[in-house]
């Protein structure tokens, strides 16, 4: 017998959890302003996140899926993408959304059950929120196929979680992307948990990055709490895709420091020691230390940033809460160009229901 195929998965990390550069940093990391911008984006996402949870707890927002702990993965991906690329999100990736120009008010509207939260003013061509996990991979593969057919130098990016990689959809999407060499990057955010299922029970594979191998797609693991490494790794994958080099699976290893959603209580299935360990390597620490060591960030500056984001969040909350309710038509209006009769009937029914004694706000 002889070996006919072998695979290798590389792991990329630029900053130690304590913020020490481990090897030569990529060129963009020499630019302090650029790194500060990324730090600010992470802090902004975290500030918003905490407020969103509180809004849910006080009855002002529906169920919300926090991003706590995964800000570096999300911001790193956002920073590597070009505006004209196309993003397919799941429910947690506000760091990327904000980077791409989606507003806080839009995010609040979505989780408040308002369809306008799906209709991003910027960027117009990204996919809306989509809770069914793994479906994003096929949606993005479709977009990538379009880019390829139209010969546009654009890429699609699909998010998926560790739990999502067990879905058949993911394998179908990777197969298509591999077979057609589509310009797409599958970003697997391995936050170690899929609601209450730990990664050890999710798969027997050593890495999630290797799941692309069978579809002929190279995979790479990156420290998802190292925003420099994520951006670097993502930039390379996107550049390759844009130049006709085909797809990549990027597995960003991080940790879900929050409950799965506001309707979950992770303390029922997860031990505290594990969470305490994860807090020690959370993503803000290392970038903060690097920036402090370069003398461009200090406690006062961070507090000032934080205060500004708090004001911004509060303003967005005001705007969200004072947005007049939509009519019930909204939930039917964006499904089909020509709605089938049964949906028209439902829309009519909803209108009649809405007209009976329902408080307007």
């Amino acid at each position, binding site marked *: 017998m002889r070996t006919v195929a072998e695979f290798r998965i590389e792991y990329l990390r630029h900053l130690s959890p304590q913020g020490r550069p481990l090897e030569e940093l990529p060129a963009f990391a020499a630019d302090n302003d650029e790194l500060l911008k990324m730090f600010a984006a992470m802090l902004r996402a975290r500030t918003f996140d905490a*407020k969103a949870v509180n809004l849910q707890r006080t009855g002002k927002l529906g*169920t919300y899926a926090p991003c706590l702990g995964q800000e570096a993965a999300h911001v790193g991906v956002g920073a590597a993408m070009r505006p004209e690329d196309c993003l397919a999100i799941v429910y947690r990736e506000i760091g990327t959304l904000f980077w791409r120009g989606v507003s806080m008010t839009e995010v609040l509207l979505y989780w408040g059950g308002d369809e306008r939260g799906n209709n991003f003013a910027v960027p117009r061509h990204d996919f809306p929120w989509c809770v069914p996990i793994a479906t994003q991979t096929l949606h993005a593969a479709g977009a990538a196929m379009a880019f390829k057919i139209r010969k546009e130098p654009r890429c699609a990016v699909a998010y998926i979680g560790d739990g999502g990689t067990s879905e058949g959809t993911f394998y179908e999407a990777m197969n298509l992307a591999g077979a057609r060499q589509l310009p797409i990057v599958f970003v697997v955010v391995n936050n170690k948990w899929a609601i209450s299922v730990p990664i050890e029970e999710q798969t027997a594979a050593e890495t999630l990055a290797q799941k692309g191998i069978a579809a002929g797609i190279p995979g790479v693991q990156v420290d998802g709490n190292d925003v420099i490494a994520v951006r670097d790794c993502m930039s390379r994958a996107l550049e390759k895709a844009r130049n006709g080099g085909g797809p990549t699976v990027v597995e960003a290893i991080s940790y879900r420091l929050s409950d799965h959603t506001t309707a979950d209580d992770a303390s029922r299935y997860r031990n505290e020691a594990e969470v305490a360990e994860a807090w020690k390597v959370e993503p803000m620490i290392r970038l903060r230390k690097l920036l402090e060591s370069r003398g461009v960030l200090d406690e006062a500056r961070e507090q000032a940033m934080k205060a500004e984001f708090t004001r911004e969040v509060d303003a967005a909350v005001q705007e969200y809460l004072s947005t007049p309710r939509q009519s019930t038509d909204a939930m039917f209006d964006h499904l089909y160009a020509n709605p089938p009769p049964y949906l028209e009937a439902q829309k009519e029914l909803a209108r009649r229901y809405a007209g*009976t004694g329902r408080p307007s706000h």
Partner: protein
Amino acid sequence: MSVTFNLPDLGEGLPEAEIVSWHVKEGQRVEVDQPLLSVETAKAVVDVPSPYSGNIVRLHAKTGDTVQTGRPLVDFDLPSQVTKATDTSAPAQANQGMVVGHMATRNEELVDHAIVGRGRRAYRDRDRVRAAPAVRMLAKRLGVELSTCSATGRHGLVSVDDVLARANFGKSQQRSPAVPGLTDADKLRGARKAMAQSMSLSRDEIAMCTIFDDADIDRWQDRGDISIRLVRAIVAGIKAEPALNAWFDPTGPSRKLMEQMHLAIAVDTNDGLIVPVLRDVTSQSAAQLRAQLDDIKQRTRARTIAPEEMRDYTFTLSNFGTVAGRYATPLVVPPTVAILGAGKLQRDVVAGAKTPEIHVRLPLSLTFDHRCVTGGEALRFLAAVINDLQLPN
């Protein structure tokens, strides 16, 4: 100015929460987002932050209390200008914007697990009224009891129009006349309440048909253990005709023939009718059955029997004849499909070979759900029961 913060829905459609601890006191000043209290819901223990900066005037509940979603939790006194836009929780109605699904109150939604005669379907009587969440919400707002609406929608759903029709119907035409002067003390509880519910369910759902006959037990060699002979005869009946040991779901409609037989035995107690269950009766000896029966009867009368021991049965035996009564039309409780009643032993004049004779006979009443069981099946079952009972031992 003063505003009330009502308990929001902390999960997805949770009806209530229990207060684990307060982190603030009356009279205290708090800042927005400062933790007010910890509550435990069916899903999680969560901290509820303050929606306002202001003074706490009143806490509406104590540690350990259960508060319904949407009910007052904390009264605040706020500096006058800050309430307007952020204040969605102050008016009780506005909270419903974030209610997901049907926000039932405890009475509507939760089921008394000590309920008798419910079979597998603990949630059955809620299922009985089928309606979309929006329709339920509408009914709730209009104060319409869903179960009093006709259900003209597809698949037996109560529609918006049904609720509206009911709302305009006027109070004079309720189903039963109201009994004046009732107080809380008159409310049925426990087994008696469960009986009222399961019997209503039975009446509403089942296509009852009852067959009467007698088993001639004159040849029994000793007086015999009637209860255990009845159990054995029912087992023989089910061997001959498995269709009566089944669960029926009319929504399919579907029928599941049960492999094991768990026999519910109706027991009369001062508190009402209780129906504990003999497990897996086909695989037990007479002595084992007797021991199990004595045990559950004793514990039933002592009211120490666990609710689980009264669930998941597949057939019912009502041995009412220990008191009086020859025949009856016992009621089948869904999802089971049959019940056998045994009346008081009779000394009957029967036709002998040439002359009248007096024989001891056991009167039998078999009720079955004719939606699911055919007349032929019921008769074959009953014939096998009688044959077995008529054996000398």
